[in-house]
């Protein structure tokens, strides 16, 4: 087990900067997920920790010891690759034992380890198969078993589930979450799938253009995005952003200035910001539909044309239009699904409203709790 520290880590390739000065502390036994769009530098960071890529600046510390120049052999790390790097000429059991044999472990110990890992991963039935004869999901499971079998200091996972079917991916996600908590390895996980990140992470590190955008628990990231990019990237679908302005004691949305009724205190705070251009951010899950126009505590009410109503399973949705854009809202019950009701109104949960600077994208530290 180990704690990992990154200090001002940078990687420059000849024509661009892949990683641009990253500082991060990963605690012993923690699961940290690097999340970001492709090309944001997350995989390069991981490869630096693995020792497969030499950083051009900064330091990587394992338990306080600098490992920048260390060959991967010396630091006890294990890695699972995106393009499942199993040895095609070896049977599953030999693949799993490979790292143990490479380290010259005695034969009996290897047998014991193999038994332990194959029971843990439920691989008993496929131990004698060749990787090519297995479906991708099972192959990645073998790769994971191979990584875990020698109980590494740090377990590195580079988009391990992206080559797998949706169906099996979900299965593996659960399995991975369970195993990581049970075994307690320090784990660094790289993905572009925010669902995976939210589901698995103790902390998420959101990256863009080689820099860290925000670090936090999944819940912090979801509820308090640092800027509009974090709000958009986390959550499925991402946060909606609507330009706002305050005029005549009224909060107006979009170019056409549709009014959102909010309490006086929030209005006062917003007015206090002067001419700063703002936009609000809200998640579709926090937009609901009610029939009575009065008495919805903590909700801002909006009147806008509803263009579509539909259900997926037992979830009910509606689409409404502001300016020329269509937004989705979620209805708690199916009672509003039947059709137009003159009483109905769209409610924004004011506790979940976030305000962003329209120019910098930064989230403003103001809330609308008691309104």
């Amino acid at each position, binding site marked *: 087990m180990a704690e990992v520290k990154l200090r001002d880590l940078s990687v420059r390739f000849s024509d661009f900067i892949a990683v641009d000065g990253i500082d991060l502390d990963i605690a012993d036994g923690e699961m940290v997920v690097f999340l970001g*769009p492709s090309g944001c530098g997350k995989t390069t960071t991981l490869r630096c920790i693995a020792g497969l890529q030499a950083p051009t600046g900064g330091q990587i510390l394992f338990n306080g010891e600098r490992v920048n120049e260390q060959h991967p052999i010396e630091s006890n790390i294990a890695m699972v690759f995106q393009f499942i790097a199993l040895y095609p000429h070896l049977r599953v059991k030999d693949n799993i034992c490979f790292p143990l044999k490479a380290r010259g472990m005695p034969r009996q110990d290897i047998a014991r380890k193999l038994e332990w890992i194959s029971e843990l991963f439920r691989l008993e039935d496929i131990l004698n198969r060749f990787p090519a004869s297995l*479906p991708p999901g099972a192959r990645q499971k073998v790769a994971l078993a191979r990584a875990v079998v020698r109980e590494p200091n740090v377990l590195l996972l580079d988009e391990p589930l992206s080559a797998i079917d949706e169906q*099996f991916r979900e299965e593996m996600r659960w399995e991975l*979450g*369970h195993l990581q908590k049970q075994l307690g390895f320090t784990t660094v996980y790289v993905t572009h799938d925010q669902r995976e990140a939210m589901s698995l992470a103790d902390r998420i590190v959101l990256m863009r253009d080689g820099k860290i955008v925000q670090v936090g628990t999944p819940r912090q990231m*979801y509820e308090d995005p640092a800027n509009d990019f974090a709000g958009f990237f986390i959550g499925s679908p*991402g946060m909606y952003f609507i330009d706002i302005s305050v005029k005549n004691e009224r909060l107006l949305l979009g170019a056409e200035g549709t009014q959102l009724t909010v309490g006086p205190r929030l209005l006062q705070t917003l007015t206090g910001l002067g001419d700063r251009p703002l936009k609000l951010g809200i998640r579709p*899950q926090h937009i609901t539909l009610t029939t009575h126009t009065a008495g919805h505590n903590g909700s801002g009410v909006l009147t806008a044309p509803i263009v579509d109503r539909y259900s*997926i399973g037992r979830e009910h949705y509606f689409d409404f239009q502001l300016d020329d854009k269509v937004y989705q809202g979620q209805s708690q019950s199916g009672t509003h699904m039947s059709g137009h009701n003159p009483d109905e109104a769209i409610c924004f949960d004011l506790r979940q409203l976030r305000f962003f600077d329209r120019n910098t994208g930064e989230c403003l530290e103001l809330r609308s709790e008691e309104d």
Partner: protein
Amino acid sequence: MLELRNISKRYGTTTALDNISFEIQPNEIFVLLGPTGAGKSSTLQCVAGLESVQTGQVLFNAHDITDQHPMVRDMSMVFEGYNLFSTLNVHDNIAFPLRSAIYRQSAAEIRRRVERVARDLHIDHLLERDVETLSGGERQRVAIARAIVRQPALYLLDEPLSALDLKLREELRLELRRLHERHAATMLYATHDYHGAAAIADRIGILEHGQLYQVGTLNELYRDPQHVRVGALLGSPCMAFFPARRDSNTLRLGEHTSLALTELTGALPQALPEHLLLGVWPDDIELSLNEAQGFQAGHIYAVDFRGTDRAVQVQHGEQYFRKVVDIDFPARQGDPCWFRFTLSRSICSTLAAERGWATPRLEGEQRWVLAKDDSISWRHCSFLAVV
């Protein structure tokens, strides 16, 4: 518009498609949902004419096109791997179908159409670029543009988005939906992604092991899943399954525990086989962290944070299920928990003979539906549903 009649296809000894029949209505997005190797691509290739059909017919606007050459079937296809021509730039890639012998257009018309479709897909600034220099998302947009520029009668989309980032995928899915509305296009869309299917489909066909298990709108499939695989492929989390045994008039989960199925007790039909598979939508399972009368014991296997809520996996002996719980539900991995089925408020719960679980076929299966009114009546159907 398009109709497949009893299509079968074999590669050597393996059966890729086994007696597939379905029909696509005009202006519909029909999604084939199934895991890799289910036969989705084979189906699309049979429709496009890229693969020959061994038995069965493909009908297009009531004409038999089974033996027609792909060139003359007015369809276009988007492939998973984009399949762009690397020797041509973006404009020429998109214009390609308009320059073919059959669909040839004048130069001015080509320019007009390419520009319009490029604008629709937000790639008008890329027209002069080399396709090798594009990102994955941009390439997929070009591939889609090439497919829609000709405005064929039918679009075939084979996992068009699965190689893309999740965020891009969501974005392009919306884009496709919008294109569909604007052009009133008819699409046959193959995917393994339940979320993608749910977001875009008018109707869904559940395909696995070369068999089409059920066709319907998402809600129809939810209300009355007619096969175990339908339950297993739908929903996130999907349907939970428990092997059960009928013991005269009670149902037992596993070998010993008796199941609290009050509605069913005393009403089980004699014809019901002894070994059953009980399928329950997770919403119909009540979960508690405190022991209570009539609940089964299990433990929390893993917890999954989803933003506005959480999902938990509950392990009960060999069996497990997953369920969405409130975001503040204080369950942690390893905690003991208790659960029961609340079939009374269920829309649908299902029972199937165990054979349906062990093998994908339901040959000669007895089927039951229980309609819950005063006079309990039995009908033949593949599952026992409590409505």
